[in-house]
């Protein structure tokens, strides 16, 4: 199995943390869930949930594409394994891929930072809220199969926040 290898360093001059060559920052579930709530609440003004999904997709696609290139990883299944590990490395939860392929597949999450944080903060909800996870999956699939962003449609079909024992995402072209 391909193993994700990312070095962490602290730039003492600028007081910045880097994971690989990306500036990284620690934030908590309050921030992630409040950004998510903000995205939902702003719907009358702007499609905030779409922005949240797309910015995650763009960032993840960029990080993974660069990682694959620099580490010579070309097999899509290995690439997906790396993506799954990156999701956990970021502290976003645990993904299990179900029948993944270039046409899509499904992703299950027994834990998710946004969902666990949401439940911890506000309790269960009536609709899926893991737009960050949705965008991550879209970026991860696109990078794995050398596709541009917005290639994959990802829908959260079952949600931890709504009381399910695991979240389930459908991935399609």
């Amino acid at each position, binding site marked *: 199995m391909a193993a994700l290898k990312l070095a962490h360093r602290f730039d003492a001059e*600028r*007081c910045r*943390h880097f994971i690989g060559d990306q500036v990284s920052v620690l934030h908590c579930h309050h*921030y992630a869930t409040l950004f998510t709530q903000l995205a939902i609440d702003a719907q009358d*003004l702007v499609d905030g949930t779409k922005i949240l999904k797309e910015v995650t997709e763009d*960032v993840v696609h960029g990080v993974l594409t660069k990682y694959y290139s620099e580490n010579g990883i070309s097999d899509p299944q290995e690439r997906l394994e790396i993506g799954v590990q990156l999701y956990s490395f970021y502290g976003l*939860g*645990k993904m299990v891929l179900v029948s993944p392929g270039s046409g899509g597949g499904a992703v299950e999450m027994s*834990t998710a930072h946004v969902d666990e944080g949401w439940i911890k903060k506000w309790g269960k909800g009536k609709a899926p809220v893991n737009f960050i996870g949705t965008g991550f999956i879209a970026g991860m699939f696109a990078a794995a199969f050398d596709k541009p962003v917005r290639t994959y449609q990802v829908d959260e079909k079952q949600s931890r926040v709504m009381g399910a024992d695991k979240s389930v995402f459908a991935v399609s072209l």
Partner: protein
Amino acid sequence: MAIDRNKIIADMSKVKAESNPDGIIPAFNVLVNQMPAQFWNGFTRRMVDAVADEVKDAVEELLINAAHECGYHTGYGIITSKEWDAIVKPMVGGVEDVLHGAFAVFTAWGWAKSEIVELVPGKRMVVRAHDYYEADVAQEYPGKKAPRLMAYMIRGVSAAFMDLAYGGAYDSTGKQGLYTFRCKQTKGIEKGDPFGEFLVVPAAEYDTL
């Protein structure tokens, strides 16, 4: 014993965030994530840029509030953590030391290379940030200069730290103690200033600024 800012930054910057087998990072009484700064900046920039000018202020307030609430709860988690007890607490002689220590931790964690340059206990605080990830948003604008001050996270967290210091006992529900202070950004690297500057005052005085 005075606060040794350099020692706090050196020691606290080594605290590692590692996910558990469930891919979750529980730390400081919260769940932590370590996403690229580009993600946080990307969301705030796209949200602010996407709305009409007349509602930009409203969206900005929501972004600040998210950081304010985060800073209140995570800030409390930090100052009650074992890491704080081991590294910072031996240097703390009073509330003001807690605030100086908190900004050293804020710096160590990569949020902003920041320090308090003026503090009137319970009344006013001025924070200066010499480097902060939110300033990187300027790279996305023409001429690498943001059209407005955009350090929403620093604004929210700075106000939250004053809430924790002078707003009364910590309230995990956030119904009391939170939002007793507000912060205005007066300078920003993202707009071409040499540093970011942030003025925190009691919430009741904010509208007079």
